[in-house]
């Protein structure tokens, strides 16, 4: 099992080196990865380059936990267009 990461827009360039299969889809091992921010680090993506983050289809923050089998989606800065007042960003910082 791995963590599947779906990259959108110009972030796909980050995937080109390792990508196989569906466009923008990267699979990474979960070693050392506990939350969304670790996924960004593993792919050398700075937080400032991102807009919306999703874990398994749930609008999420950097501290949302991730595990093997999860799907993480990362949208670049210039694709931010969510009606954010309708969404609650999920985090796990209490645990």
């Amino acid at each position, binding site marked *: 099992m791995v963590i599947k990461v*779906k990259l*959108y*827009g110009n972030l796909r360039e980050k995937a080109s080196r390792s990508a196989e299969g*569906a*466009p923008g889809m990267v699979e990474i091992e979960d070693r050392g990865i506990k939350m969304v921010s670790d996924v960004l680090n593993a792919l050398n993506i700075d937080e400032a380059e991102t*807009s*919306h983050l*999703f874990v398994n*289809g*749930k*609008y999420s923050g950097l501290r949302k936990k991730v595990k093997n089998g999860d799907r993480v*989606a990362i*949208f670049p*800065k*210039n*694709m*931010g*267009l*969510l*009606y*954010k*007042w*309708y*969404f*609650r960003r999920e985090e796990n910082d209490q645990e």
Partner: protein
Amino acid sequence: MRKILRVNMNTLETSYEDVPEKYQTLGGRSMTSTVVADEVPPTCHPLGPHNKVVFAPGIVTGTDAPTSGRISVGGKSPLTGGIKEANAGTKCAQMLGRLGIAAIVVEGKHEGDDYYLLKVTRDGSALINANQWSGKGLYEVYKELFEEFGKAVGICSVGIAAELLGANSGVCFSDPEGLPSRYAGRGGLGAVMASKGLKFVVVDDTSAPGVEIKNNEAFEKGKEKLRKALTSHDVTKPGGALNSYGTDVLINIINEAGALPQRNFSSGQDDRSENVSGEKKAEEIKKRGGVRPHVCSPGCIIKCSEVWTNPDGTDPVGVLEYESVWALGPNCGIYDLDVVGELNRACNDLGLDTIEAGNTIAVAMEGGLAEFGDGEKALQLFEEIRNKTPTGKILASGTEVTGKVFGVVRIPTVKGQALPAYDPRSIKGIGVTYATTPMGADHTAGYAIAPEILKVGGEADPFDKKKADLSRDLQVATAFIDSSGYCLFIAFALLDISEGVEGMVETINGVLGTDFTVDSVAEIGKQILKTERVFNEAAGFTSVDDRLPEFMREEALPPHNEVFDVPDEELDRVFNF
């Protein structure tokens, strides 16, 4: 002094009157809804002589305030049976504003079979026989009209779907390329216009006096603040999401959120949706030599529009909006941009509302008229409308009628109007707005400045509030923006930049000579909603009409497997102000 232009379709005469005192501060939606509430009997037949069609540019429309080229169209809707306001961005709006026309009120009903064209210029207005431009597709007709009246005019029209008096018909305006692609689409107001015998409005603003600005200092100051907000915010600035990809950038985002309805609202996610995404479309437009970014009306900073073409760069369609791409694409199981483009072309050509039309085709597919994914058959169904066949007449009547005729149980409508591109089982807050807005299911009704900025009641954080309060506040703010003439997309910048909100209010004060504050404009929004609700109640609406369709509460939507579970009591709290 702004004027109201009255167009009597019984006598085929036009006349002008001063804007009455009580309408002095109205524009856009506040103007159309107030005139409809004052002059249209709520129980009248929407296609009978007592209904009216009202056009009103926004308060600042026609000035050089950025991103302010909106026009509202109002009347009693043949689709919902309630009050309707639909708006579009087009230079027609700006031209009417510059001519000093606060509203055009079309009343009565022509007795014969002829269709008419209303020509509006600085020197006056007149009705001209328009039979030669009727019964034809709008792409062809627009070319003929520009040839007849000159390239600089603005055109408003209704199409063949409206000639059928189909509630699926929108009111179409010309875009800067002269294409019939800018729609005040929703609610079947096209049919109301055609029922009166009016098919076109042609506006020429040569030597127009311009919009009167009562306090230039306030206006200029506000304009600058707003410009700064729009050019600096990530969503609205050049190179931002709307500018780079258009509204269709939402396909991948909402699909990722599991809320992009697929195959008539039977799933919320399908990775094939990526084939019709904003990224894919921008890439193709670049390859084909289409235009992106592009404006719907001059003076827009955001520039979310575009010109989609055939693969060889010919035969421009106009913009492919997120809602249209979704309705005609994933919601019909279609994941090919060229097929979606041709379906959108057919809608523009026939004068159909793309959201209603896509839902209608999806319901027809579920009812057995075609397989999901069969784009060729979908195009043939639109040809039934063009040929005015009995099947075409059913489809032109919209989603609910089509569902009933073909025995479909899963009919995604509220108050008879089909749902837009966000499944309310995954995004429950928007479901509250779909259920309760006086307009019938409408995403734009609660799509505005966050309540923590407009302070329309309640505390700061929208996420800590009950959904009824959130939806109410958003609907109030939206009603105000819909009256201003500004595009709703300025809300993205205003959400985060409070100087932008001040700027918007200051430009309005500049034009009107008023002293509204950021807090006091919320009262205006509330008043508009009250007016609309009172009309609907008198037309026979009750709380039962403020509900989502039954299947939304019973069928769990993949991938999150959620149903819509906001209690009825919560929905009924939205309008308890």
